[in-house]
């Protein structure tokens, strides 16, 4: 099971890896006990996840890594029936019910499960390593939950490129990550818009103290307001947003500081290294060279788009984004963008509420920006009334005390 293959060049093996305040390198990370293959390694900390990944990279074993909390009993049984040994955080191993030959070099990811139970998507270290050009030396923050696509993106970059250090943030450190990042000289960070909003909301001064040169957003619809707020705090940083998923990989990368992507990117001629983006109805369809195993051809993403001049905005999930108010349709994402464009709003969620006569009405939850004084629902209704059709104005607005954030760093907006 070990010492047979090396699936990709571990150019970053001597890159710095900071875990729990300790400065190590990939090479000097602790070694896990001999891992079976195929194995589903369930972890309760970032260091074990990195050790499992390096083991996979060195030995080419078949691996699924995820946090223990993401894999419930039913999924553990399914994995066992699919030939995976389950390795728990304490090292205990449950042998698989099905014995099968390993798929050498296969890395499995779980989808976020936003449309049902998480699915397993097959990749390899190569298909997950989408950044292949030489990068300027950087120290990356790693706030993502182990095993998610975004986590793989950051860790493969660090493991396969020179001078790409990592600072791992555990869930209990999320509230104070800017302090840790500043202490360890983090120069690049990737997170969801919710993650960035949280950081600004909690302590914008602490955030400004992090010497960021590269800021990346992904995992949720990215609106202009959060891009502008980050630009104000970090005027010299490169600010990018990425559309990526386990199924299609990193497929859209935008560096111009604007929400959405240029409409001219739709239906371009096929290119071996570039995904083909198209729209069917309101749905974004992607044919990607970075796709998961068996997902060749156009993938219907389930994400809804709206055109805004020469830009294509990704507004949310197809099944929840469009709200039909008495026959008039409005995008929850567009309403959310308008609300979050209000200077007094730190975060917003927009959703449909059942109502008489019109069937559904637009409603919202909002976290106000405490530093700018109180705002009322009347202020926000007024703000929206001048920017949206009347049926798109959220008539019922609930104020929350804090920005909700899940383990995935998303808030399911």
């Amino acid at each position, binding site marked *: 099971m070990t010492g047979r293959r090396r699936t990709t060049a571990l150019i970053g093996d001597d890159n710095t890896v900071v875990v729990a305040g300790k400065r190590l390198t990939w090479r000097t990370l602790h070694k896990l006990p001999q891992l079976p293959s195929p194995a589903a390694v369930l972890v309760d900390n970032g260091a074990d996840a990195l050790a499992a990944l390096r083991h996979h990279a060195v030995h080419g074993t078949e691996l699924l890594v995820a946090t223990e909390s993401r894999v419930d009993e039913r999924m553990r049984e399914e994995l066992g029936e699919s030939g995976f040994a389950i390795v728990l955080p304490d090292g205990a191993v449950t042998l698989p019910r099905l014995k099968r030959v390993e798929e050498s070099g296969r890395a499995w990811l779980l989808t976020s499960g936003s449309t049902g139970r998480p699915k397993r998507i097959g990749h390899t270290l190569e298909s997950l390593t989408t950044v292949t050009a030489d990068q300027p030396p950087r120290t990356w923050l790693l706030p993502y939950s182990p095993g998610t696509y975004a986590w793989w993106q950051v860790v493969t970059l660090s493991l396969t490129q020179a001078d790409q250090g990592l600072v791992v943030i555990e869930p209990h450190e999320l509230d104070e990550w800017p302090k840790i990042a500043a202490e360890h000289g983090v120069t690049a960070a990737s997170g969801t818009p919710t993650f960035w909003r949280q950081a600004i909301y909690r302590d914008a001064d602490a955030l400004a103290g992090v010497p960021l040169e590269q800021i990346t957003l992904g995992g949720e619809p990215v609106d202009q307001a959060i891009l502008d707020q980050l630009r104000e705090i970090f005027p010299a940083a490169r600010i990018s947003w990425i559309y990526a998923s386990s199924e299609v990989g990193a497929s859209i990368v935008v560096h111009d500081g604007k929400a959405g992507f240029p409409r001219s990117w739709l239906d371009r001629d096929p290119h071996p290294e570039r995904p083909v983006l198209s729209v069917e109805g309101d749905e974004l369809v992607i044919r990607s060279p970075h796709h998961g195993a068996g997902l060749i051809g156009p993938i219907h993403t389930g994400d809804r788009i709206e055109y805004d001049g020469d830009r294509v905005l990704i507004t949310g999930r197809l099944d929840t984004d469009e709200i039909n*108010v*008495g026959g008039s349709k409005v995008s929850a994402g567009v309403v959310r963008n308008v609300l979050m464009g209000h200077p007094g709003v730190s975060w917003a969620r927009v959703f449909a*509420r*059942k*109502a*008489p*006569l*019109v069937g559904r*009405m637009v*409603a919202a939850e909002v976290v106000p920006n405490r530093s700018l004084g109180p705002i009322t629902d*009347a202020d926000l*209704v007024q703000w929206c009334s001048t920017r949206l059709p*009347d*049926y798109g104005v959220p*008539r*019922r607005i609930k104020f929350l005390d804090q920005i909700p954030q899940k383990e995935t760093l998303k808030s399911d907006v």
Partner: protein
Amino acid sequence: MGEVMTAQGRSLPAEDTADLREIGFRSLDFSELALRVEDELGDELNFDAPGLRRIATVGDVLDFIEQLQSA
């Protein structure tokens, strides 16, 4: 009802016989009022669609809301 009208920059007439169309109280306003009542009661209301067609005046709205609250 007055709060809904005020939020729209209008005022509620004193007479219960005032015609909803004339005062500009539209379906969206009625829906908002229903959601306000729901929030107040903390429970989802079961709206009787046939009954809604009979609502033409301010008094009809107030009666309907009262019925909902006592249902």
